[in-house]
């Protein structure tokens, strides 16, 4: 009896591998057997495919169907194989030409009435199909816009199994059906957050711009009501638009986490602000069957904001050390390793003590010194060491409020232009190196003969080093920030002023 094969894509993390779907009809009692390590959702494909085929007007053959998903040792997840299984079975039965079916990659979940549902992870799956040399991919009409974002591959969007079979050459009459669409965009990027809303806190605004210009991680310490959260939420608005590769990666991660991507790639940097009860698995990604990206991966190319940082579990914060160092997250399971990009900008905010009033000036702190010390010690040294800008934010005073009404405040649009110009300057200087941002540059390169700042410029820093106020690593970090400050100010090289500002941004909290 009949045999036919087609292709689909299995995802492990963001990487996809091609799966061959073979269907064989044998002379046995009716039934469908699915082999090749399917998970629970995939094992139920047999029921969906049978019903969908019947309701599309071409019931499956009344004999035993064996469907093999090869490579057989690779675990397969989710419902995206339904369409491939259905067309392979019908091609084995001779309803559609096997040659046509074999040349196309099929991705999509079937509804019982034969319509196709939008499937999560479409973008990375189509990218994988294109990378593996396939020319045509058939996807649900509700996902077609998303799939069409991938260059160099022909996307066929079909609303139902019937349409798919007609496309492959089955002799069926077309039937108009309502297209199943992905749920609408849940949270359109909030562009209403503007720096204009921030009153006072000029040094914090400067710090935000320096962080955006150099890609530096940021730590803000201050009493409740000082505006830390407000400032952090405005950082993505200062970052430039994402490049083509970055926006493809951000959109892929969004698609993989099951959120709608829409008809254009995401070009604005994402902001992830998980609650402090988050687990390590939710932060870096995980899951027992399907490995899903965590908050840190979703924040890639954008901002990961941890409000009330000392309230996070120590293990969760320290899980970020590897991605901060390498820019990616590797999740190991017995049967697979998933890699996710994690090149995010980290922003931490914390109160100085459990009651929050320590150093605020207007109210007494009620915490015993012991509790105060323990509170900030929850953020481990190695993590804090990777954060270039550490800043104290203070509450706005009535006088500042009065003054700020007159003084010209900075809008996000203007600040973004400055940041963009600063980044261009840095990229020019760093041309020919593996780096593009000041925060990535190595210490020896900064201190090399041609980049060395004169002794008068670094006098302040050298003194701090001599006194033991900063370490050598801290010294390098201050130099990096100083270059960002200079880029932002439009100065060719950091002078004493820029180094002084960088030192201030580093030493905002005693460390």
């Amino acid at each position, binding site marked *: 009896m009949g045999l036919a094969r087609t292709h689909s894509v299995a995802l492990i993390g963001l990487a996809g591998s091609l799966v061959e779907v073979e269907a064989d009809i044998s*002379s*046995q*009692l*009716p039934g469908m057997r699915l082999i090749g390590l399917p998970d629970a959702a995939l094992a139920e494909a047999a029921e969906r495919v049978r019903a969908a085929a019947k309701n599309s007007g071409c019931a499956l053959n*009344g004999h035993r169907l064996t469907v093999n998903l090869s490579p057989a040792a690779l675990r397969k997840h989710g419902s995206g194989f339904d369409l491939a299984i259905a067309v392979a079975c019908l091609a084995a039965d001779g309803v559609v030409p096997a040659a046509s079916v074999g040349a196309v990659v099929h991705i999509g979940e079937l509804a019982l009435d034969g319509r196709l549902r939008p499937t999560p992870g479409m973008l990375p799956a189509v990218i994988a199909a294109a990378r593996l040399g396939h020319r045509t991919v058939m996807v649900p009409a509700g996902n077609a816009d998303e799939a069409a974002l991938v260059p160099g591959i022909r996307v066929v969007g079909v609303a139902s199994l019937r349409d798919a079979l007609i496309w492959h050459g089955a002799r069926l009459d077309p039937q108009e059906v309502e297209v199943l669409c992905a749920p609408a965009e849940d949270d359109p990027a909030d562009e209403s957050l503007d720096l204009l809303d921030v009153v006072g806190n000029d040094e914090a605004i400067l710090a935000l711009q320096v962080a955006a210009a150099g890609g530096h991680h940021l730590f803000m310490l201050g009493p409740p009501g000082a505006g830390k959260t407000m400032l952090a939420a405005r950082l993505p608005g200062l970052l430039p638009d994402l490049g083509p590769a970055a926006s493809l990666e951000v959109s892929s991660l969004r698609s993989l986490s099951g959120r709608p991507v829409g008809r254009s790639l995401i070009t604005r940097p994402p902001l992830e602000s998980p609650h402090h009860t988050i687990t390590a698995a939710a932060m870096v990604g995980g899951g027992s069957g399907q490995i899903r990206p965590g908050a840190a991966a979703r924040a890639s190319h954008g901002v990961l904001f941890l409000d009330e940082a000392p309230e996070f579990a120590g293990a969760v914060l320290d899980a970020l050390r590897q991605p901060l160092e390498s820019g990616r997250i590797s999740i190991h399971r017995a049967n697979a390793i998933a890699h996710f990009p994690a090149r995010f900008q980290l922003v931490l905010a914390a109160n100085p003590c459990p009651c929050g009033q320590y150093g605020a000036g207007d109210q007494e702190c009620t915490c015993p010194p012991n509790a105060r010390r323990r509170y900030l010690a929850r953020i481990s040294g190695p993590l804090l060491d990777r954060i270039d800008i550490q800043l104290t934010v203070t509450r706005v005073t009535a006088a500042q409020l009065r003054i700020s009404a007159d003084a010209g405040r900075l809008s996000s649009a203007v600040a973004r232009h400055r940041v963009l110009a600063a980044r261009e300057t840095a990229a020019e200087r760093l041309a020919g190196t593996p780096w593009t941002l000041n925060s990535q540059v190595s210490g020896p390169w900064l201190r090399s003969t041609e980049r060395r700042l004169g002794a008068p410029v670094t006098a302040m820093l050298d003194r701090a080093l001599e006194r033991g106020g900063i370490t050598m690593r801290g010294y390098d970090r201050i130099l990096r920030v100083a270059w960002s400050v200079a880029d932002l100010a439009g100065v060719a090289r950091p002078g004493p002023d820029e180094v002084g500002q960088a030192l201030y941004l580093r030493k905002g909290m005693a460390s």
Partner: protein
Amino acid sequence: MLVAEVLVARKDDLGRRGEDCAAEYLARAGYTVVERNWRCGQGEIDLIVAKDGDIVFVEVKTRSGTGYGHPFEAITVAKLARLRRLAGAWCAQFEPRARHIRIDAIAVIARPGQPPVVEHLEGVF
């Protein structure tokens, strides 16, 4: 007779006609019918036939249409397992040295006013 009894009688009648069709079909295919509707404490075997030294136990399923699915779809794993036990019981009683036994399924679709269609699957267990 009550309506329900009439329906049941009609159903039994359909089953019997289906078994007749199946027996006829197998006889034409060169099988010898050994026994029909053999019963024991555990249940009933519709047809027992023999050919070339093989003893074949046949489950016959008859329907008057495919509106509620193909007759083969009604042959479940549990039904096959019972048939296998019954085959063992029959062999123990009549043919302790049976060389080869096989379990087959036959579907008869007897649409009213049309000649019945017989489908035969060999070795379904």
